[in-house]
């Protein structure tokens, strides 16, 4: 699939005197049951999906499909839905950026300003996950409803025209995405900021940096690994999400995920559904490969 580099096994490099090395032997057998499960129920279906995307599109559920290596499926898929892809990536990108803008101060506050409330605040960050995300998204439907307080407030301060609405607009969908993926941005940011050595920030101050300059030149660059993983963890699932679009928007806001679901479950247009899925996966894999190239595979899992 992708070009993967394996990290060298410890035995080939000289260890520090007395350092514990990994055992050779039959330990790898422990890996087998889980890997078998993933191979059968993840790798195999994905490969099958690849083949499905190359089926003859003139087949159907009733008449069966022929594998004709019809790469044209991809061409027609993109021609058909390129605006959906653009929209999906656009929504996901905006949502990720806003998550970063909101999540960074939160993560920073938890790391440096929370004191004894640090753990409690972390709990609060993941607490919304304690209840079903469908219910939360539906709650947003009520919050952003046409007669609701938010719309009313925005109309009052003239941000929204009198006959404007929030629901069934891209704003609502993106707001939903932001809300759902905020913890995925905040937690990696926190993990990364927590690792920053306080003494480095003190050293910056000692060398005449103002607090903001210290942040800009020392803290933020050191937190970049967290920014990168948070961005990936937000953007990637946001691209494929369709629940927010479905519950908070109209078909005018539908994303790639909606199309895939419809193609698969309603239209039974498997080649189209499969090619869309593969394209979506390809984008994701590309980003992952880029990440691996920078960071290696050991930190993936």
């Amino acid at each position: 699939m992708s070009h993967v580099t394996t990290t060298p096994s410890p035995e080939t490099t000289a260890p520090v005197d007395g350092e514990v090395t990994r055992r050779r032997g039959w330990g790898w057998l422990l890996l087998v049951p889980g890997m078998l499960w993933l191979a059968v129920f993840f790798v195999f279906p994905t490969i099958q999906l690849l083949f499905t995307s190359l089926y003859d599109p003139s087949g159907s559920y009733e008449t069966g499909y022929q594998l004709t290596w019809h790469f044209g499926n991809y061409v027609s898929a993109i021609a058909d839905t390129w605006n959906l892809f653009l929209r999906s990536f656009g929504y996901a990108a905006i949502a990720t950026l806003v998550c970063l803008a909101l999540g960074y101060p939160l993560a920073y506050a938890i790391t440096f300003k929370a004191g004894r409330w640090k753990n409690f605040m972390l709990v609060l960050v993941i607490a919304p996950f304690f209840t079903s995300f469908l219910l939360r998204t539906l709650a947003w439907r009520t919050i952003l409803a046409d007669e609701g307080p938010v719309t009313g407030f925005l109309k009052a301060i003239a941000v929204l025209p009198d006959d404007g609405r929030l629901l069934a607009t891209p704003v609502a969908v993106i707001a939903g995405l932001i809300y759902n993926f905020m913890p995925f941005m905040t937690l990696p940011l926190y993990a990364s900021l927590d690792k920053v050595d306080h003494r480095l920030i003190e050293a910056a101050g000692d060398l005449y940096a103002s607090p903001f300059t210290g942040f800009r030149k020392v803290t933020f660059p050191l937190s970049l690994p967290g920014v990168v993983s948070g961005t990936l963890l937000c953007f990637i699932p946001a691209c494929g999400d369709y629940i927010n679009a479905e519950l908070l928007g109209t078909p005018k806001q539908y994303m790639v995920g909606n199309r895939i679901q419809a193609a698969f479950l309603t239209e039974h247009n498997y080649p189209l559904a499969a090619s869309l899925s593969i394209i979506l996966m390809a984008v994701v894999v590309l980003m992952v490969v880029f990440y691996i190239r920078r960071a290696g595979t050991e930190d993936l899992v």
Partner: protein
Amino acid sequence: MADGDKDLRLERLTKRFGDFAAVDDLSLTVPSGSFFALLGPSGCGKTTTLRMVAGLEDPTAGRVLIGDDDITSLRPYRRPVNTVFQSYALFPHLTIFENVAFGLRRRGVKDYKQKAVDMIELVELGPYADRKPAQLSGGQQQRVALARALINEPGVLLLDEPLGALDLKLRRQMQIELKRIQTEIGITFVHVTHDQEEAMTMADTIAVMNQGVIEQMGAPADLYENPVTTFVANFLGQSNLIMSDVIGASGSDVVVDCHGQKLSVDTSRSHAAGRNAWLGIRPEKIFAGAAGQGEHAGSNVLTGGRITDVSFIGVSTQYLVVMPWGQELMVFEQNTGRRAVLRNGDEVDLTWSPQHAFLLDADQDAQAGMMRPEDLE
């Protein structure tokens, strides 16, 4: 309790990682009941050797024997050997009592409860028996680690730099403690350390290790006074090494020419072959007398020195003396108060007795074994 058939013997022990030999064809015998120190800088292979004795590392070649029993292929839990680990490795989820009793229970000893309680009292940690290791200080944890190992009455006790994490005063205390315990109980101790003072204080025999091999082995005084390699000369204490030419012999001495000045070294202390040799003399053996005054500490004289640095250490004063050929020699003098301290710029003659100098092979590295800043942990 010293009976020869319980000696620990290492025969041609080797451990390779790829091309790199951490331990290279090492052979030694540790007499039963003695306190043995494996001394060397970090990375020299001493810990790897220890782990091979404990069974935590498989040797690439060679054997480990206790008495006549070959234990090389035995798993760690089948060897009559226990280890005190560098970071103590106390089980954090068990109490002190459970930690100490661990080995006894695995072996099915019936009255482990009483034995453990007695041992905990012995190391003076009675009130802490129900606590977890995290609640104890470093020194207390160290005692628990010791108790946990000793309670099993092993044939050999291995100690992997057990005092490294303690502060100076505590370390000195524990050195004396450990020596006392070993003398009382009579178990063979094999103590691994990079601290040469610690090794010399505690051990009956020291083996100095460097890059997987033993450079010299013997009693601390023998190693210190009569080193056979530059590594040992520099690693134990400090030495001045001066390049000299071997001229000939005179009675029981070897005569050398040192930048134009004749010096003699006792033949038994000459370990050099060839035309050149390093003349070694320890700083505390040198007497720096005012030039031309004729104050002597022995028949070896180096004239023409000038003091370039005076450091007051409290117990002693340390001088740096620059010689006519540019080399700076170290001279230590105990502050007995009997004569005035020399001053920067004073002209001095350096003298010492031929019994104190030694000769080492000229092709050895004069820097070997010297402490570099990056060696300090």
